[in-house]
């Protein structure tokens, strides 16, 4: 009998996994992708929306059309997964049995978990740019903002694309300079971390960039409450930061269908998996890709892309009864937009933190340093996303394993 692979989620991870698995197993397996809507959002583009540099119509395409035409697409939400019976119960009442399940349900924004955040001022004075609605509303608010204190706040980790809030600060600095009112705007970055970023060398560089651009940094601030009416963030240890406009990255959790599925998710709704094979901890025939996974990587599209190759190989090996390949190294690669047509590139994995040098080898894009070339790289990536990454092709010159050539290892 033909085996069936069910993939939950038609975002970055689900789409590239489906297309790669289709190529690896053409004709041998039935592949079904399930998602509740047909709107695939290019999430890296959300950062540009508040500054009028991208618009909704540039960022959304059909989920179904990103899949090879032999891949089945089921337009339904998921109620829960029954891991004992190998069945997915759909929101429309349907049931899908599976031989292998790939979970690609991503991360969900949970602003209501923070006291006051969705109360008075939400979407008028406090915004998130992590979804289209918020990013679009924030674009209007930024256009009308003519001075005062703009606070960018990360409530708690983990979040998608941990560099995005920093990029927002850099772009805000550029945006208000362009408008000629930078001297009337106080920019403040408020983070629960003890520095600008999680990794020491990059944290120093990025912290220095905040300082150079006159952006105040408030660290170890664990937001307990957002008072939109009074315009203040209040931490659990009762410190306060006042604002005229707040851009808040809400806490993230896993998909609700994971929380409804016995045994599948952790306390936050993410799915524990082996960090090298991507096989779930709950059942051998369940694999996880992208933001849905509880593994120690950043929640970022580049990680998902690099996971794609190992995940595909392991699903194929699992079906053949072979030993899994434990080679995923946590490779992450991020362009950090820094304003004025420049960007910084960082490249790292589980063992090597972001370091200066060049990518992918001694001749290449400068690492941990502002450059115009990196900004062009970031822009080009939008095209590559739809035309190479989602179809599941390897990107030219970009290997799954993190390259060490070109990195300056002696900096610490």
């Amino acid at each position, binding site marked *: 009998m033909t085996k069936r692979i069910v993939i939950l989620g038609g975002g970055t991870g689900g789409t590239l996994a489906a297309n790669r698995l289709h190529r690896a197993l053409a004709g041998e397996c039935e592949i079904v992708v399930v998602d509740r809507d047909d709107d695939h959002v290019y999430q890296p583009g959300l950062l540009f929306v508040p500054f009028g540099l991208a618009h909704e119509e540039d960022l959304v395409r059909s989920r179904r059309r990103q899949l090879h035409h032999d891949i089945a697409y089921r337009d339904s939400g998921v109620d829960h997964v029954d891991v004992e019976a190998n069945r997915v119960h759909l929101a429309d009442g349907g049931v899908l049995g599976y031989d292998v399940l790939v979970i690609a349900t991503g991360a969900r924004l949970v602003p209501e978990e923070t006291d006051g955040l969705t109360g008075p001022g939400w979407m008028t004075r406090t915004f998130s740019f992590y979804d289209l609605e918020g990013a679009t509303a924030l674009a209007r608010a930024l256009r009308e903002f003519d001075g005062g204190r703009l606070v960018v706040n990360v409530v*708690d*980790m*983990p979040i998608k694309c*941990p560099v995005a809030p920093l990029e927002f600060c850099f772009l805000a600095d550029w945006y208000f300079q362009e408008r000629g009112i930078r001297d009337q705007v106080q920019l403040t970055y408020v983070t629960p*971390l003890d520095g600008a970023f*999680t*990794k020491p060398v990059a944290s120093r560089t990025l912290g220095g960039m905040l300082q150079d651009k006159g952006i105040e940094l408030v660290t*170890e601030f*664990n937001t*307990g409450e957002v008072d939109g009416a009074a315009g203040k963030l209040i931490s*659990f*240890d009762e410190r306060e930061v006042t604002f005229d406009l707040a851009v808040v990255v809400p*806490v993230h959790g896993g998909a609700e269908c994971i929380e409804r599925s016995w045994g599948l998710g*952790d*306390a*936050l709704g993410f799915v524990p998996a082996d960090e090298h094979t991507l096989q779930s901890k709950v059942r051998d025939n369940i694999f996880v890709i992208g933001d849905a996974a509880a593994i*120690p*990587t*950043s929640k970022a599209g580049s990680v998902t892309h690099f996971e794609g190759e190992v995940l595909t190989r392991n699903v194929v090996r699992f079906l053949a009864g072979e030993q899994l390949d434990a080679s995923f190294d946590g490779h992450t690669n991020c362009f950090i937009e820094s304003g004025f047509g420049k960007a910084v590139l960082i490249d790292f994995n589980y063992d090597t933190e972001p370091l200066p040098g060049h990518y992918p080898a001694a001749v290449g894009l400068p690492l941990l340093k502002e450059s115009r070339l990196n900004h062009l790289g970031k822009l080009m990536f939008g095209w590559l996303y739809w035309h190479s990454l989602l179809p599941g092709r390897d990107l030219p010159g970009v290997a799954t394993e993190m390259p060490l050539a070109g990195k300056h290892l002696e900096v610490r």
Partner: protein
Amino acid sequence: MSTKVYAGTEVSVNDEGFFTDPGQWREDMAAEIAQEAGVGDLTGRHWQVIHFMRTEFAQKGTGPTVRALGKTSGVSVKELYRLFPKGPAKLAARIAGIPKPRGCI
């Protein structure tokens, strides 16, 4: 890496004071670690969190984050900050003799 003496027994700790070998921890050491960490006298609520941290570590190999602790320990995040001011996950882990919770990236 260095050593400390709690409840009359020498144990190994790292630069930040976290136990490097959770097996060396005993309940009667907790009060001294708590004093040293500025947490003060331990109440029943503190102990609920400390026991929870030990169990989580035994099962998962890492201590929970504050948010996960708030969802699963039966003590809210607000109360956790009252019990262990500044950093509940870090302080509770240190008093419970387990390594610093692996931060998120």
